[in-house]
């Protein structure tokens, strides 16, 4: 016996749900036109009516969905021009699909048949909530990207941009970044400080993690706590402390000083990730290597290091990004000669709100994505290789 759960649902259930979704969309449309309440009501009424018509009078799905797309595209175009039309097409496609997805009861198809309505509701609410969290996290980053192609010198979506007119866009802020000596100097400083700081933190952090994970080391917990403290102590306090300390010993305002400060900030990340990989590391391997005559250095490089490498690399990545993104400490420890990219962006935001900052941000986001993708691909590759080799 099969249980057919994808059965058509009553109109009295579908229409209010669709209307609620329509009201939600309507809030945004309404707010954009300075009338939230009207938008909310209008959205609910339009989508509710649409659902009612499609499910009772005109139940021909293929045509109905095209009608929905076309209808919303026209409404969107009338309300907001070309971009409004594009959003309208997306909304029309969504509601056409949503009405029949609910109306035909298709939403139950992939769920276990014994789910109660509440469980079904939670199943989909959970997905909607997750989607909204992603949306919330990513939108601010995505919004700045088109603004970096602005033809004007403000953080403003000009009417030309919204019409998708070519004269509203330009690459001049990218050009400014690549030709302006201040930005180039800052880029160069960042690129010479971050790798040096990363090397130092990876070296010290890995050694510290290995040392702290051997049981014969006394006072392991207090030492660990001290080494990790730069991550816990508010940055401004570390920065002020470093400023006065480095001033006394002549490191303030030097390249070496900034590198050391950033290395201190990066060490905790390396310690934490390497310690985590060391938990899964079998100590008997080092003893076996020693038994076969390898000295500790050889053992480390030939046996231990390859196995904990993923932890070392991801720790190094965090250390790199910490140094590359850091603005508070460098403002204190550095002098104007060590102006890094974040410092330059900070100044730019305060003194001159220029979209060049957005162009830089877009480039940095691109680099971060590339970097993370590369590391992830490498990790998968090494996992695959390890899975293929015995042991």
């Amino acid at each position: 016996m099969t249980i057919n759960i994808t059965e058509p649902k009553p109109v009295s259930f579908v229409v209010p749900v669709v209307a609620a979704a329509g009201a939600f969309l309507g809030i945004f449309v309404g707010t954009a036109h300075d009338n939230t309440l009207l938008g909310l009501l209008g959205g609910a009424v339009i989508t509710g009516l649409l659902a009612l018509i499609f499910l009772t009078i005109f139940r021909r799905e293929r045509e109905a969905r095209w009608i929905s797309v076309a209808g919303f595209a026209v409404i969107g175009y009338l309300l907001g021009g070309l971009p409004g039309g594009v959003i309208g097409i997306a909304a029309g496609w969504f509601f056409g699909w949503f009405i029949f997805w609910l109306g035909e009861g298709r939403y139950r198809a992939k769920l276990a048949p014994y789910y109660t309505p509440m469980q079904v509701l939670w199943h989909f609410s959970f997905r909607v909530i997750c989607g909204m969290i992603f949306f919330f996290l990513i939108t601010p980053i995505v919004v700045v990207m088109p603004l970096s192609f602005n033809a004007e010198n403000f953080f403003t979506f000009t009417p030309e941009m919204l019409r998708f007119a070519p004269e509203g866009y330009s690459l001049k802020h990218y050009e400014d970044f690549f030709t302006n000596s201040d930005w180039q100097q800052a880029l160069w400083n960042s690129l010479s400080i971050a790798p040096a700081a990363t090397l130092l933190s990876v070296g010290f952090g890995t050694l510290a993690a290995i040392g702290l994970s051997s049981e014969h080391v006394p006072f392991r917990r207090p030492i660990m706590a001290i080494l990790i403290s730069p991550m816990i102590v508010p940055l401004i306090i570390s920065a002020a402390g470093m400023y006065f300390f480095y001033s006394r010993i002549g490191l303030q305002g030097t390249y070496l000083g900034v590198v050391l400060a950033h290395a201190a900030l990066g060490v905790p990340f390396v310690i934490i990730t390497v310690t985590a990989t060391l938990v899964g590391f079998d100590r008997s391997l080092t003893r076996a290597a020693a038994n076969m005559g390898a000295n500790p250095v050889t053992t480390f490089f030939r046996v231990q290091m390859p196995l904990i490498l993923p932890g070392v690399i991801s720790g190094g990545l965090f250390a790199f990004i910490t140094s590359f993104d850091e603005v508070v400490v460098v403002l204190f420890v550095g002098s104007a000669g060590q102006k890094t990219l974040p410092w330059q962006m900070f100044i730019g935001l305060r003194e001159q709100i220029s979209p060049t900052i957005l162009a830089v941000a877009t480039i940095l986001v691109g680099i971060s994505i590339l970097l993370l993708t590369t590391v992830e691909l490498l990790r998968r590759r090494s996992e695959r290789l390890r899975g293929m080799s015995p042991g």
Partner: protein
Amino acid sequence: MKMTKTLLATTALSVAAGAASAQDMADEMTIVSWGGAYQESQVKAYVEPYIANNPDVSVTWDESSAEAVAKLRAQNEAGNLTWDLVDVTAADAMRLCDEGLAMEVDHDEILAPAPDGTPASEDFGDMIVSDCFIPQIAYSYTFGYRTDVDAWNGNTPDEICDVFDLETFPGKRSLEQRPHNNMEWALMCDGVPQEDVYDVLETPEGQDRALAKLDTIKDEVVWWTSGADTPQLLADKEVVFGSTYNGRLFSLIEEQDQPVAMMWDAQSYDLDGWIIPEGLEEDKLARVLDFLYFATDTQRLADQAKYISYGPARQSSAPLVGEHAELGIDMAPHMPTNPENASNAFVMNYVWWADYRDDLDSKFQSWLAR
């Protein structure tokens, strides 16, 4: 006779400077300024010509003028002076001078006389508000408004009290997030004559009166903290009316071509200039003095006005102010000191503010939080 003397003196000075430059001057200078278009004008008008004459010198810029007082205190406490020359507002210069963090100078001794021989102290006149302060420009806090606001029915604001008139000029306005100027403007629009403003503001009742006037527009105010805020807000149509430095508005209107106009009524003057940090090493001090002698002379100050619409601090520079370097427009009408713009201007009383600042700051901040 006087002319010959001056000539002799100038020659002697420049010979002395020339002789010193070979051995005793540092080749690196860290200059602290405000960033943005203002710093750019200093680069163009002072530093580039100076480096053309002294190719060995390299200049590093630090855009830290906004926190110059705090940072100089920290450098002093840490015993690690990294700045050579600092651009600050007059009020900050006074504080730094009182605290002994800025060097006291004899203006006639270290600065060039005017071309006609008038000594520097007379040429700068009242602008020298502190023994440590070497004036550079006069700027003003003034208002800009959008020219395309439908709700105003064709009216344009032309006096300060229009800022407080929400009926004729509805819409958001941006004001600076500190009591300076806002309190003065509020009292002026509450019927206090300009010359009595500071007397009234000294009393707690007067302060409450100013805040009560600000209360009438508080819901419609966006508070700014950085000079770049108001231009951005105006360009964005977030506000229709806003106060900021006049040079920022000039750039917004003339260089960026935005539909915005100036309202000069009751603009509030302030000064900006150099201070030399106390305790510079001898070779660095020699370089800074050499640079300052050049960068504050009559021609250099007039040159700066080619790039930004701030008034040169020397009287002798005013006739030399010409056209904008790129736009080719006459700069004189855009100067805050232009007689037409200055008809109802007032000078912010920094001496008074130095005494009342802490009190009023906290009162203003708690009013903001209400």
